[in-house]
């Protein structure tokens, strides 16, 4: 019955168009923002999506086949650039996994990763310069105030947290306070100015650069803190904790635990003092507004079912970035595997291209 009705409707539509002249096409309707899975099940895990604007976005990820703590990789890392219209794969060579990206100047994009890797990318010439921090371990984070004042963080061969500073010509070690327990990796830096920089690390450690020295500001939790972010030095946030899941807020004096039991967050982005997004394990997205944290639906929830289930994203997110138009970019994959694999990029905004130019 339904089939017959469908055919009749289609025939009616067809007949109604016969003999009609071609009228000008209707203008396309304004595209509403929506959650979309831009990439999924990429061979490499995606670790950071970030840009200078919504039309200049970088996505960095792992190098497939890279061995544990390796300084060589059989494949190039997964690096993508989006210009607002199309995606293009960047080719830095077989440099190993890239964990983080940040623009320290308009034509100076820094990327860090495996085996002390530091990449200088110059968009105007589409060229990479490779440097190496004095460590063979992974650098997990980068932030800089200018091309001559850039900070990298990770660990060293002794598995002790390490911080490095790049003056544009030399990368040097910045001593971590002796009160920081050994075997504590330093994950991510984030600065609000050249002399106000926070670092998150393992075992509940945060560090603060006050322009003169790194200070140890211990949080009340013993867990690893994957990320820190904020807009001013006396109102910062930090997330991490793995299965325990912690979310901490800095009130200008001390770190306060704001978490609830099931928040297992890895990435963080502060839009304003009171609006914060966090993402984490198993496709989790959290949104803080008006002083309250709420869990949002996973990307793809309620989508059309297929043989292998619907397209809900259950992978882990490693990072989140909110662009100047309110577009939300989430990067992740299977993050426990070394190197991370099964990359996923989810985006909230008007529909965008999913094609990659090699």
């Amino acid at each position, binding site marked *: 019955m*339904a*089939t017959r009705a*469908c*055919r009749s*409707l*289609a*025939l009616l*539509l*067809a007949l109604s*168009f*016969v003999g009609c002249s071609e009228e000008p096409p209707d203008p396309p309707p304004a595209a509403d923002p929506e959650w979309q899975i831009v990439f999924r099940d990429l061979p490499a895990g995606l670790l950071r999506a970030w840009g200078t604007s919504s039309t200049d976005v970088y996505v960095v990820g792992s190098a497939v086949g890279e061995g*544990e*703590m390796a300084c060589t990789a059989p494949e190039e890392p997964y690096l993508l650039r989006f210009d607002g219209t199309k995606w293009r794969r960047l080719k830095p060579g077989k440099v190993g996994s890239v964990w983080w990206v940040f623009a320290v100047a308009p034509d100076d994009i820094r990327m860090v990763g495996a085996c002390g890797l530091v990449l200088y990318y110059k968009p105007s010439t589409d060229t990479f310069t490779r440097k190496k921090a004095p460590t063979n371990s*992974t650098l*997990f984070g980068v932030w800089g105030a200018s091309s001559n004042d850039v900070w990298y963080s990770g*660990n060293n061969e002794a*598995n002790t*947290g390490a911080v490095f500073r790049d003056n544009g010509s030399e990368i040097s070690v910045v001593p971590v306070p002796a009160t920081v*327990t*050994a*075997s*504590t*990796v330093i*994950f991510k830096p984030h600065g609000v100015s050249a002399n106000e920089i926070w670092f998150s*690390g*393992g*075992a509940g450690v945060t560090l603060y650069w006050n322009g003169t020295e790194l200070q140890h500001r211990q949080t009340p939790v*013993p*867990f*690893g803190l*994957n990320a820190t972010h904020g807009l001013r030095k006396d109102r910062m946030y930090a997330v991490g*904790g*793995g*299965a*325990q899941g912690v979310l901490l807020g800095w009130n200008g004096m001390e770190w306060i635990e704001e978490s609830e039991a*099931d928040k297992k967050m890895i990435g963080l982005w502060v839009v304003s003092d009171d609006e914060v997004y966090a993402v984490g*394990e*198993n*496709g989790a997205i959290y949104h803080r507004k008006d002083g309250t944290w709420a869990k949002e639906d996973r990307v793809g929830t*309620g*989508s*059309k*079912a297929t*043989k*292998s*289930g*619907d397209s*809900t994203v*259950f992978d882990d997110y490693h990072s989140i970035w909110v662009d100047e138009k309110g577009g939300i970019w989430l990067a992740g994959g*299977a*993050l*426990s*595997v*070394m*190197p*991370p694999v099964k990359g996923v990029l989810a985006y909230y905004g008007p529909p965008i291209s999913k094609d990659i130019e090699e």
Partner: protein
Amino acid sequence: MKRLCLSLLVIAACGDGPPAFPDANGFPDALFLEDAGIPPSIEIGTGVVSFIPLTEGQAVEIFRGPQGGGRTGGYHIWHAARIHGVDPHAADLIFKTLLPTGEEIASNARTENLQYMDGAYVVAGVAPALSDCCHAANADVVMRVEIRDRNGVTAQDQRLVHAGDCLLGAGGPSLCP
């Protein structure tokens, strides 16, 4: 002309194929249940990309995760599960590593669309992070998994295994005193 072609395509699409009857969650439910009618069961195992069964007392390795940087929070034992007789869509799973006393030292709760692989639904590559990997190093531990599908069907399994050392890297020094 394009519209005429589109309309003809619509006609072609109005075939006599089997209708789908989505349930309240939008899934065509029973159409996609590979082993409907089989009693629910789950088996704990190990493996990164596929299920590897475990025997009681078997030796297992402790692995350092990509961001492992110390004995707390950066190490895990790979957990996997092989499952029958449950609804595979958005199933809730909890993987745990326990001391023989029952004390929990790692946990990973996940919701997954279960993948059908080699005659069973399989979840692999789950990495419950050890709160302190030295608590498991060179010791007997219990690997445990529980599942609850969206219809409330449950199953569980556990296995006593013997964990290896907590190493800085493969072949590296031990992190434990």
